């Protein structure tokens, strides 16, 4: 049973029996893995805070041939989002990204591009404000769709293959494929030039550059709704976390008597 060592992001943990945890990890070398961290729930556990979601760790593990779950021997923290303030909005973003990776990435398939995507998004969250988190969520979902092969091309009409002009609106079919005015007869959801430009920026820029530019919230929301439909179509269900994201900002007007 050789020991393996790799960098990894902790995506999610579940409690197992009295003191153990099952962890879902996105590793750089071995893709998505599930492993057991024995004794991780104990107060004086050797894992300490290293198993909190989206902590980047250097993990050492071994795997028995007959077992699907690996055994985690140690975790050294490389970066932890837990050192800064954990706002409810940041929790929402992290859980949404974790759910996207867990659902789209098959187990035991190394994918350096997804690892680098998550790494870049986590770097961008460090200096981001809660107002910028929706842009990071859009960034994560569009790129996960693209890397999973579920994002249609937005440069040409899906029907006649004619290249779209820069200022041209396109119309989306029910499965998200873009069509020109002629082929779609202007039926379906209209995606105007601003939204297309925003999508092109998202696919060209780093997450940090993408959130630093001022974005029109309507265009960002339309990208979110298009991505949501593509995700639901790919997974045949909605993600749990997306339904909660909008509730995570405290609304003081909800207080009785205020």
């Amino acid at each position, binding site marked *: 049973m050789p020991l393996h060592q790799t960098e990894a992001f902790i995506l999610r943990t579940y409690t197992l029996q009295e003191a153990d945890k099952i962890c879902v990890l996105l590793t750089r070398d071995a893709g998505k893995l599930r492993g057991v961290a024995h004794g991780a729930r104990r107060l004086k556990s050797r894992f300490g805070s290293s198993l909190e979601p989206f902590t980047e760790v250097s993990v050492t593990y071994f795997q028995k041939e007959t077992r699907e779950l690996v055994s985690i021997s140690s975790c050294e923290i490389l970066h932890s989002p837990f050192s800064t303030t954990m706002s409810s909005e940041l929790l929402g973003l992290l859980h949404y990204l974790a759910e996207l990776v867990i659902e789209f990435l098959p187990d035991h398939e190394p994918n350096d591009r997804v690892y680098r995507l998550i790494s870049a998004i986590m770097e961008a969250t460090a200096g981001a404000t809660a107002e910028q988190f929706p842009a990071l969520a859009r960034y994560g979902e569009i790129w996960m769709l693209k890397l999973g092969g579920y994002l249609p091309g937005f440069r040409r009409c899906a029907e006649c293959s004619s290249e779209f002009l820069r200022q041209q609106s396109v119309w989306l079919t029910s499965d998200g494929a873009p069509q020109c005015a002629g082929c779609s007869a202007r039926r379906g959801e209209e995606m105007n030039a601003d939204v297309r430009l925003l999508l092109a920026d998202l696919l060209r820029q780093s997450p940090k550059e993408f959130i630093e530019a001022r974005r029109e919230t309507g265009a960002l929301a339309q990208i979110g709704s298009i991505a949501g439909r593509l995700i639901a179509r790919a997974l045949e269900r909605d993600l749990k976390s997306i339904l909660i994201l909008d*509730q995570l900002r405290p609304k003081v007007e909800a207080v009785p008597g205020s």
Partner: protein
Amino acid sequence: MLDYAEPVTRLIDEFKRLPGIGHKSAQRLAFHLLKSSQEDAERLADAIREVKARIIFCSTCNNLTDVDPCRFCANPARDRSIICVVEEPYNLVAIEKTREYHGAYHVLHGALSPIRGIGPEDLRIRNLLERLRPGPDGESEIREIILATNPNTEGEATANYLGRLLKPLGVRVTRIAMGLPVGSDLEYADEVTMHKALLNRHEM
């Protein structure tokens, strides 16, 4: 599972539905019950039946209780101007063990966890806000809220959410300290725990 009689299979299946119980543990529990006396088995069945029939949520603090209000809310010796907010009823027991806290409690029955589909609407926050409602003199009875949710990502985000919700109401909101466990060794502390311990240091 075809090897066992149908009632045994059913019992094993029921045990398997409990958290942390796999097939082997369920089998072990079922055979332990089969070997035990009729009285022992009936005592267990009665205890399960009674807990389901008699245990309710306290209408004030949401703690699990057999009388409403619960013994903490009904105790006149406790300081009702301080509320300690915890995630689960068993967290309250951990705080009571200190014998240092004499205020009231509020149980949220969970923490924010979008990945599990748990948002603010799923936690018992509304009746916490109702407890802060000003009295006839226009002043709230509550002076301080202690946020004692778990020191993990979800507990911290829940505390952050509640803090931002409660602070504008003019109540003092505090968070339990995070840092090193007593009896541990600095050598083995991870950097995040150490960072939190330094942040929460106090004057000597």
